[in-house]
């Protein structure tokens, strides 16, 4: 069971919060806060789990997810998607693109941690 998590998120406070939560649980958290270079960041970091925001500057989380699923080396990467938009259409969109887990902001810390553990255990 790996322990590397890549967090792609542009809100500094949210990055800080998630990093704190996961680090306390023993995860190694890397962060990235830009859309266009996100895929490269994933390939570089080769995380065990990806936490991906939807609203990113440059390129949306959906597009990044599509790229990941289309990229053979990382196609199987578990992806936990976060969005503040909270519309069912977004969830359907994410699922059709092969998201592993979809969570709406705000979330409880326990919920986040449980989801990360669950996905990493697969």
């Amino acid at each position, binding site marked *: 069971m790996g322990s590397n998590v890549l967090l792609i998120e*542009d*809100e500094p406070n949210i990055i800080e*919060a998630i990093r704190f939560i996961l680090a306390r649980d023993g995860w190694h958290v890397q962060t990235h806060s830009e859309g266009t270079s996100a895929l490269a960041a994933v390939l570089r970091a080769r995380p065990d789990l990806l936490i991906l925001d939807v609203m990113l*500057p440059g390129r949306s989380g959906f597009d990044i997810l599509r790229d990941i699923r289309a990229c053979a080396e990382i196609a199987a990467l578990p992806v936990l998607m976060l969005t*503040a938009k*909270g519309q069912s259409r977004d969830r359907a969109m994410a699922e059709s693109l092969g998201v592993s887990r979809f969570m709406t902001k705000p979330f409880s*810390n326990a919920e986040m941690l449980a989801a990360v553990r669950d996905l990493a255990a697969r």
Partner: protein
Amino acid sequence: MIPFDILVAVCVSYVALLFIIAFMAERRASAGRVGWLRSPLVYTLSLSVYCTAWTFYGAVGYAARSGLEFLTIYLGPTLVLVGWWWALRKLVRIGKTQRITSIADLISSRYGKSNALGVIVTLLAVVGTTPYIALQLQSVTLSFAVFVRAGTDGWALPDVNATALWVAAGLALFTVLFGTRNLDANERHHGVVTAIAVEAVVKLVALVAVGIFVVWGVADGPRDMAIRISESPLAGTDFAAGRWVGMTFLSAAAIFTLPRMFQVLVVENADERHLATASWAFPLYLFLMSLFVMPIAVIGLATQPAGANPDLFVLTVPLSLGQEGLATLAFLGGFSSATSMVIVAAIALSTMVSNHIVMPLWLNWQNTGASMSGDVRKLVLRARRISIAGVLVLGYAYFRLTGGSEALASIGLISFTGVAQALPALLGGIFWRGATRRGAGAGLLIGLAVWLYTLFLPSFGAGSVMSAGLLSDGPWGVAWLRPQALFGVDGVDPLLHAVFWSIALNSFAFIGVSLWGVPGPMERLQGAQFVNVFDHSSDAQGWMQGAAEAEDLLIMAQRILGGTEAQALFQRAAVAQGKTGYLPDTTPAFLERLERELAGSVGAATAHAMVGQIVGRSSISVEDLMAMADETAQMMEYSSQLEAKSAELERTARQLREANEKLTELSVQKDAFLSQISHELRTPMTSIRAFSEILMGGEDLRIEDRRWYSSIIHDEGIRLTRLLDDLLDLSVLENGQVSLNLQPANLRDLIDRAVAATTEPKGDGAITIHRDRAAENIELVTDTDRLCQVFINLIVNARKYCTADAPELRIDARRQGDGVLLDFVDNGSGIPKRSQAIIFEKFARLSDRNAAGGAGLGLAICREIMGRLGGSIAYLPGQGGAAFRVQLPLRPPETSAPAGSQGEAPAQLNHA
């Protein structure tokens, strides 16, 4: 002296000769050799039925009593034939095209085929003609009597009444034999007309012979005759202008309205062109007839004993002077005059009586429809024969009743006046389209009544039909109703009086009632065809032949239906008729079909008129034209309505499309807006929740971390609050519910306030602001808080987004007209061109950096505020850095001042 037997024998021989002539003529005509039977000469001679025994004998008597006044009897017809030739031609054309059989038929047909009018005219003709027929019988018996009186050698005085009866019976026989051989008005009475032409010659020859005898035998040539005339008492006869005019009018009217004249002039006419000959030849005939009237009268007065009947001078003058042969010729002339008149009048009257009275009654009695079977044909002939007999019986009865004592001329004039009552209806009918059936009926009835009352009944003499008291004092003593002094017009010649009142009241009623009413459709149709007869009938000689007609129809149909369709239609019809090619026979069925097809394209009335014009069976009436115009107008109106409707539909569709697009766009905008709001709210809440949960766990947190996390929660809380504030602010602005707090202010003070509000207490993020404080010294009236809000927003944006190492913001203010221009220009990299269009939209945040308080609503709020203040805010490209231009008036326009009243609809849409 001529023995009575010989006279009778001459008479019978003459009649037998007429029978033979008539029979030969009929034979010739039925063999198809019409030839000279239908020459202009025969036509002209047949017109001489105008000259009856009255003219033959009576003119001399008239001259002997009243001098030259007798000339009026010839003057009227002469004037009509010379001057009104074209009116007669019109009558003839109408008679041919409409197949008119009598004057009653003409008037009935003209006024919408009204049989009531036919009956009225028939009665008028019968009442007017009966005395005239009696007059002819009387003249024949009188002339017999002359010979009887002259014959002193002892032959028995023949029974006058028996003579008249025999004459009447003989005439009835002749008329029945030659007058009812055929039915159709177009198959004319060749025998009768020929016999009458011969009689016309006998009349003229007899009268001229007597005249020549008088001038050269009694007097000593023309010079002596002239002297005798000037020395006679007749030379001193007063010239009564009124009577001259009245008599001329009467005799002129007689040409049109006498049933027998109508018969020979119109019904028996074979060729319109014969009228041209008659127009000079008949006046010539009349001239010759009148030439010796005056000499015979003068010699008669001079040679005959006082008290001798001047009406018989034509006979008595040669007889008393021993010219028995000449007297016999004169007798035959008078006999001819009488018989020709009776024969033609009987034919004319019997046609009217059988067509307008007997047949309708019979059909009504039989209660059967007018099925044109052989039986009906026989019936009509029988009705005519009975009518002829009836007419003669009437004449004979009148003769017996009146006792034959009247002067010939006066009876003739009474008749003339009677039949002249048909003149207004007749002339009005062929010249005036507005004439109506009711008008004609009213005129005829009133004319008839006035004639009966003022002339006909009084003519029987006081005490016979009308009492002497009635004549002298009026009915019930009402003086102005006296028959011979109507409406107080006293002391006028009774004839003139009657003519004036009957014709005047007749015309007045005719015109008045016609003007008052409106002609029915049938009357209009007939009226148009009568009045415009020359426009419609090219030449009465026959219609175009079938093939030419069909081709014309095809040409027309192609124009309307288009070549292919028209040709197919014609071909189908031709095949159906068992023909090849494209030209079917123009059968009624085909014409009807074609008319229907055309009607689909051009309307029923137009189609009818077009087909009718080519086929020539009907003419374009006013109604047709009106209906055509109506249809065209309706079609035009309809098509313009359709156009308008289609334009309207298009407009509506476009509006709907636009509205739909707008709604779709708004729906998308709404979703995007909600999605944005959700994002903007959830993002700070995510941080707040996460850190508050961390803090709640409370375990091994360092105190700095604890403080840091608390400050994050605090800042995000403020961020949330500001977002909500902005949203509410924008909502209020967009809904127009904002109330402006207008007050005077100085622009410089307002900019000072904004700069002060944006100056960070800490030094970081500071921006250098350049201002020209002197230029900013502008007084204006505005909502100072709102304007400051805009300024602050712009300054904050510059500070937030200016990427320069040493950020600078230049604020330029200047007056422009009634307003102020303010430019906020920083020294950053500016806004990319593609983004310039969207920066004023909600949540149009371009940068990824969520600097404190930025929810992406600032510029949207600025735009709303400037709109409220009557100004605007726009991105000003080409300034190096980001540049915004604020424009606002020195004083907001009135309309935007009362907040809440403006722009609600779009605002609500925008915010939906």
